């Protein structure tokens, strides 16, 4: 009992101001529960209403998050006794995640109807995953991090296997499940070590303990590395990426759209919170691993993408490579604020761009199955010029051409690397970027080709107003982030400045 008394946990109960810090998450969680119930009453033909309802919930949460940005203030505050951060970093992440989910929801009904997958639990699972991600973004306790990760993971496991009749989808789900659990075990073991060596599960206290624990504790270092491995799995960084192409390809495209973006955003936020903030005093210990993973991701992702012939797999590998670029920002983020800012900017840019790219694949997917091979894109330009132009634009952004968000993202992380005197890292980035141009542009070239005379032209579905709107929003976002840099860069730097726990 003495020990219990020593804990701040036991001495107080959560108050309203703690709940305010969790308001967006609570709204979405409420939506999740409500959707489960609504699914029972909404007739199958009207399931689009569920999407509308989800959208409303997400918009509400988004509004609250924006309000929260101002409410939390530049310093932010810790809620639930240090277990959760109510700061601008979290709200920034919330906004990105919520926008991502919102756009995913918007393209889902059309896609699901076409694939005959329109079941009500889709939306509730989406909501659950979103809650997990938002919690992850704000978590400042090892326990919350773990719970949030599992919440989002389990939801995504189910969503990956959502196409129950399709073997590919099932295989993807099992792979994701087994490998995800496996990675969680490493994450957990790392957490156990970190907890054991510092005596705390809350980041603020861990950080304090770490700065006291110098000289170095090998077990603690091992724990940090294991935690990084677990999180690197979530952001699909090489060499822990192997599941990514398979799962992205097998999962229904709307799910891939969602998880390729939102998971990465949430997991990166927590990586930034952990490594560039809480574990900053152990920077010299973990930086080599992060740099190695960054380089491996860029190399493996870009090179493997070169010879793909499925757009989903190509985008999966591209996502691996993009994770590598963001990791550059993380790797140099300690002592170089530009690194974290660049990573955050990159995340926002990546969210719009990658979402847009996958959204095109989603709205263009076939009836029975996802037709994702390059052959199915041949001639898209001639039939659906605007969709093709949008995809080309997103691919250019991923490749890092100016006037697109991707350029500014890359520019910022490379700048950070150079500012941190790590020119080699920037050079790796530059070299692999040059390689990446090839496979991105190859896809556009295939779209420009005329369909072969003998092969019957593939009939692409109509885009629909929701799909058009999503493409428009993502394209506009990509353009705005590529030109009016100041907007989001300011936001990113404010988010970076107020990061909790703030060592």
């Amino acid at each position, binding site marked *: 009992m003495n020990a219990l008394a020593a804990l701040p946990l036991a001495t107080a109960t959560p108050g309203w101001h703690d709940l305010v810090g969790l308001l967006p998450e609570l709204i979405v969680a409420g939506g999740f529960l409500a959707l489960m119930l609504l699914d029972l009453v909404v007739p199958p033909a009207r399931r689009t209403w569920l999407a509308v309802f989800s959208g409303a919930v997400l918009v509400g949460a988004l509004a609250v998050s924006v309000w929260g940005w101002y409410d939390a203030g530049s310093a932010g505050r810790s809620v639930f006794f240090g277990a959760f951060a109510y700061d601008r970093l979290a709200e920034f992440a919330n906004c990105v995640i919520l926008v991502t989910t919102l756009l995913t929801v918007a393209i889902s009904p059309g896609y699901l109807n076409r694939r005959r997958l329109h079941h009500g639990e889709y939306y509730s699972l989406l909501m659950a995953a979103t809650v997990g991600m938002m919690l992850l973004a704000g978590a400042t306790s090892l326990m919350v991090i773990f719970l949030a990760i599992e919440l989002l993971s389990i939801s995504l496991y189910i969503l990956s296997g959502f196409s129950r009749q399709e073997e590919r989808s099932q295989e993807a789900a099992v792979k994701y499940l087994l490998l995800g659990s496996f990675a969680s075990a490493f994450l957990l073991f790392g957490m156990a070590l970190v907890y054991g060596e510092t005596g705390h599960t809350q980041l603020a206290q861990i950080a304090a303990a770490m700065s006291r624990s110098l000289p170095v504790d090998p077990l603690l270092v091992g724990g940090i590395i294991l935690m990084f491995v677990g999180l690197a799995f979530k952001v699909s960084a090489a060499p822990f990426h192997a599941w990514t192409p398979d799962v992205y390809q097998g999962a229904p495209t709307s799910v891939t759209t969602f998880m390729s973006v939102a998971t990465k955003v949430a997991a990166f936020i927590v990586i930034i919170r952990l490594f560039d903030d809480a574990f900053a005093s152990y920077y010299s210990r973990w930086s080599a691993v992060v740099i190695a993973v960054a380089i491996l991701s860029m190399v493996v992702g870009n090179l493997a993408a070169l010879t793909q012939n499925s757009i989903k797999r190509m985008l999966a590998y591209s996502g691996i490579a993009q994770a590598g670029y963001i990791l550059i920002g993380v790797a140099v983020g300690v002592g170089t604020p530009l690194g974290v800012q660049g990573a955050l900017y990159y995340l926002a840019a990546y969210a719009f761009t990658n979402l847009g790219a996958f959204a095109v694949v989603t709205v263009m997917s076939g009836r029975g199955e996802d037709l994702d091979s390059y052959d199915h894109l041949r001639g898209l330009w001639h039939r659906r010029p605007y969709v093709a132009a949008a995809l080309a634009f997103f691919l250019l952004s991923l490749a890092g051409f100016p006037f697109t968000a991707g350029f500014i993202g890359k520019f910022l992380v490379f*700048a950070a690397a150079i500012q941190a005197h790590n020119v080699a890292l920037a050079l790796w980035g530059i070299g692999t970027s040059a390689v990446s141009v090839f496979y991105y542009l190859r896809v556009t070239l295939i779209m420009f080709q005329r369909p072969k005379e003998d092969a019957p032209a593939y009939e692409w579905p109509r885009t629909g107003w929701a799909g058009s709107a999503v493409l428009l929003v993502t394209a506009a976002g990509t353009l705005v982030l590529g030109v009016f840099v100041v907007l989001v860069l300011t936001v990113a730097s404010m988010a970076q400045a107020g990061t909790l726990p703030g060592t």
Partner: protein
Amino acid sequence: MSGFPWLTAILLLPAAGALVLQLIPGRAADLIKGVTVVVAAAEVVLVAIVVYGVATTSAIGGGPLPMHYVEQANWIPAIGASYHLGVDGVSAWILALNAGVFLLGALVVPRRSTERLKLFCGLMLLAEAATTGVLISLDLLLFYVFWEGMLIPLYFLLAFYGNENRGRATLKFVIYTVAGSLLMLLAILYLHFQALAGGHNTFDLEVLLQNPLPAQAGVPLPFTTIQTLSPAMFAFLAFALAFAIKLPIVPFHTWLPDLYESAPAPALVFFAGVVSKMGAYGFIRFGITLFSGPVHQLQPLLVALALLSILYGAMMALSQTDLKRIVAYASISHLGFIALGIFSLNQNGIDGAVIQILNHGIIIAGLFLVVDVVEARTGTRDIRELGGLQKRMPWLYVFFLVITLGALGLPGTNGFVGEVTIMLGAFQYFWLLAVLAGLGVLIAAWYMLRMHQGMMHGPVRAVTEKVHDLRFREGLVLAPLAVLIVLLGVYPHPVGDVTAQAVPGYVTLADASQSPVAIPTAVRYGAVP
């Protein structure tokens, strides 16, 4: 030079034009083309006003490179990037060339046979906006954004329009270019952080010029005492690579012939006319000014490569049979002259290079138009199948003759003005260069005449049996080029005058450090009575 933001206007006008085009229904081909031409023409008028202003007023700013029409605003204050525009004697005429060739491109877009005309015109106007941006940016990051952003419209233009090999060629071009320019981005970042260390959070060219790079030695390689190149040298190499690829200088040219062969004529007109000149412009504006030390150290290598371009391009042009490839290699050879002028690092050389940029733009646009007309009429570009066109197309012959003469640098045409000035500049650096460049001129006469005569003279062949002469509209496009070739050959003074205003500033910057190659005092320029 009132408060009106002229440069923003010339930057935004084409982009706005591209937007306006989107409001027009795709079926109204005449309207689309009309609007495009009007926008391009309005751009020409605006640029003409700017060039006139540059020619008649004195530059403002006490910086190392006095500019006209300067505009400055914040862009990304956090990292010191600014929206800083300006134009000077070096960029003024290139700007005019830019506007001119895009107008030409707009005029020659085939209205009926171009698929998705609206897209084509829109992309073309966007490309114009980007190239304009490259020419007027005084902020390195802004410059880079336009430099690289230029690729987007160009990529679509070249990838979507053109012959069946376009995909591969375009991809090669884009990847080649991107690889080069990404390294330049690193170098730009290096410059930025060097300035930041000195207390200037900036990408601004003028500020960077006023705070030259500290002379840092390289670091020894691991386990050895061999020094790496200095950081400044690395940075220069990165810039130089980007510009050399775009220019292109042999051996970085291999993307060019394939691309030119597969690209459609209207795109080629401005691609060959002005886009490839951006490399030369970059060398002048950024390469030699920011890196006077490295550029002097590497000067022998650079001039050697320029010379290699001249001779190699000429020899290759001599052995080709495809008209477009002949012109492509001829272009490489001519661009080698421009590079030679720049790397002479003296006033004559750089003046000549700028003059030649303008003149070559006019000539190459003309050549590609002629090739296009001939290909459209006869269905072939193989010189072995052509012949006797003079009989069937006397008007084409007249224009083509003038253009050919310009291309072979005949004195009295504009090609000569630049070449002789460049040769003078090269001579002032090292006499042998001028002699070998003269050899290039000689081979130029050979391959240009081979091409010209092969197409025009000899008996009428099967493919040329039933061709008709230029239509009035086509003549209207070629005639101004021919007139300009002659006019600028007999009265190049306006160009030279504007250019000579600005070039001394560049030479001074390039000369900021001592040249390791001793130039005999007899050929150095000195005081004048």
